[in-house]
């Protein structure tokens, strides 16, 4: 949200009227943050001079002009964040202090492992309140507590923090430049708290790409028990020009694509995931993209056992970490590696001789591409025409009307 001088002036004037002078004089208005929620409401966060905005700030709701409607003082300086590792999630422990604008009616939330364990008033903490440190239902909430939306504390690797509003229709994060970020929802309106944290790997999964492990994890959502559990894998080829299936590239210089569709069903429940291997971006060596709705010109489907499905998932996850190379390790190599991990007869294709330009490096390519969508298409068509045992599992469609099924998306 762009902030006008008028907004800031009105915000300052409102707080000057509402805050004790000693507090007002400590505020760093040149560092305040604003956000406009999806509902069109305006919020501001004003830090103190010399104190990180992630540690202590005034959390305010304003009108569009910057006039303060209500607010509270939030102090997170007693929170301790232990960064996570690859195998261990980050933890957050300590206390969150909240009070009204004048610093009174303080509520203290005890946080353990990212969850609110207990809410107390400062009076009860000192032993003078109603009942052994427990929250007193008669104790009035801090001013604005009932009307301000709660915030989501976002913790980053360097222990700084940001905030989000829980009245947003979705959880958002603001750290595109970070390697990763973690968020913790702290919701004081309920005694027991919501999910404590979710990992966000911003750089590892750039926009438009998917985390293969989170994609494959969704299959855990369907039980392996019962008599109707089925597992399937399908390898799909999308050639660049349907009327010329052997053509290297189309007018957009696309060489086509090969990808995998995995499906697990149990009774009426079905989850499908279609995904493929792509060149890396933003410094990564390769990426996996969701291929739902992608066109299919040739495909081979296989029924799998539960054990084979597990092998496929392991291979898909492991091979996704290899380096993409258009000649030696491309999308077709990836898809063949995944499906061949459970085939008794390895599926192979004929090399495709090419002369062209590598758009990434600009180099001439007097080479043969070991595996390609074009050669996979030709292979599957030959197998279909030969009428072998798998012919009925092969589908050839040059009409652009076959598409990959809807994918489930990622699961945490």
């Amino acid at each position: 949200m762009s902030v006008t001088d008028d907004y800031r002036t009105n915000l300052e004037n409102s707080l000057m009227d509402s805050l004790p002078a000693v507090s007002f004089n400590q505020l760093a208005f040149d560092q305040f943050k604003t956000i406009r929620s999806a509902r069109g409401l305006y919020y501001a966060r004003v830090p103190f001079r010399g104190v990180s905005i992630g540690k202590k700030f005034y959390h305010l709701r304003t009108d569009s002009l910057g006039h303060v409607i209500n607010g509270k003082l939030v102090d997170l300086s007693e929170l301790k964040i232990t960064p996570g590792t690859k195998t261990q999630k980050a933890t957050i422990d300590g206390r969150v202090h909240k009070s009204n604008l004048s610093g009174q009616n303080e509520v203290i939330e005890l946080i353990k492992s990212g969850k609110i364990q207990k809410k107390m008033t400062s009076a009860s903490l000192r032993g003078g309140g109603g009942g052994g440190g427990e929250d007193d239902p008669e104790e009035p909430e801090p001013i604005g507590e009932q009307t301000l939306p709660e915030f989501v504390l976002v913790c980053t690797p360097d222990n700084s923090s940001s905030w989000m509003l829980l009245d947003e229709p979705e959880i958002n994060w603001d750290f595109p430049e970070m390697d990763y970020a973690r968020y913790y929802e702290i919701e004081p309106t309920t005694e027991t708290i919501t999910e404590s944290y979710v990992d966000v790997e911003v750089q590892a999964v750039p926009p438009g790409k998917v985390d293969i492990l989170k994609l494959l994890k969704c299959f855990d959502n369907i039980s392996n028990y019962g008599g109707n559990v089925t597992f399937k894998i399908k390898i799909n080829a999308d050639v660049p020009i349907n009327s010329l299936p052997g053509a290297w590239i189309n007018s957009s210089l696309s060489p086509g694509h090969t990808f995998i569709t995995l499906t697990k069903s149990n009774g009426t429940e079905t989850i499908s995931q279609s995904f493929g291997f792509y060149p890396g971006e933003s410094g990564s060596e390769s990426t996996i993209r969701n291929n739902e709705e992608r066109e299919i010109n040739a495909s081979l489907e296989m029924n799998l056992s539960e054990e084979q499905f597990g092998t496929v998932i392991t291979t898909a996850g492991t091979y996704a970490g290899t380096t993409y190379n258009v000649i030696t390790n491309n999308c077709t190599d990836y898809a063949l590696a995944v499906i061949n991990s459970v085939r008794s007869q390895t599926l192979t294709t004929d090399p495709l001789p090419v002369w062209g330009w590598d758009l990434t490096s600009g180099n001439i390519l007097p080479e043969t591409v070991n595996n390609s969508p074009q050669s996979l298409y030709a292979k599957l068509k030959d197998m279909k025409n030969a009428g072998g045992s798998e012919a009925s599992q092969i589908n050839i469609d040059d009409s652009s009307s076959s598409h990959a099924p809807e994918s489930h998306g990622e699961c945490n």
Partner: protein
Amino acid sequence: MRTVLVIIVALVIIYLPVRFVVHLISPNDVSFSNADGTFTATEYLKKGDDYDLIKRRFELFKNHVRKNETSYVGRDTAVLYRLDPMRVWQIWNYGEFLFNDKYSLPYKNWEEIRQIRGSKGNNRFQTF
């Protein structure tokens, strides 16, 4: 020394112009969004992820909204906008501007949408 000179000359005469031409004839990947940014997508033409694919995914998104996403009810989700303007100086793209369906979509500035939406959410139909 002579070999080095030949390589440099070859670079200048062959490689650089060819790269420039490849850059020119390679169509630009165009980005799309609905009015509130709950659906966003970008083409990846070098691998065939084109506007037709994005249209199919947008239909999927709208079905998804109708069935599941009650929080989107009443919001402006159903119209797809093009986020890349038609730049008159890109004469090599005039054919695309005139005949490609994606350029018949209304244009909207991404900053306007981003200010409404805020940051990218946890919605799988948002690719940025």
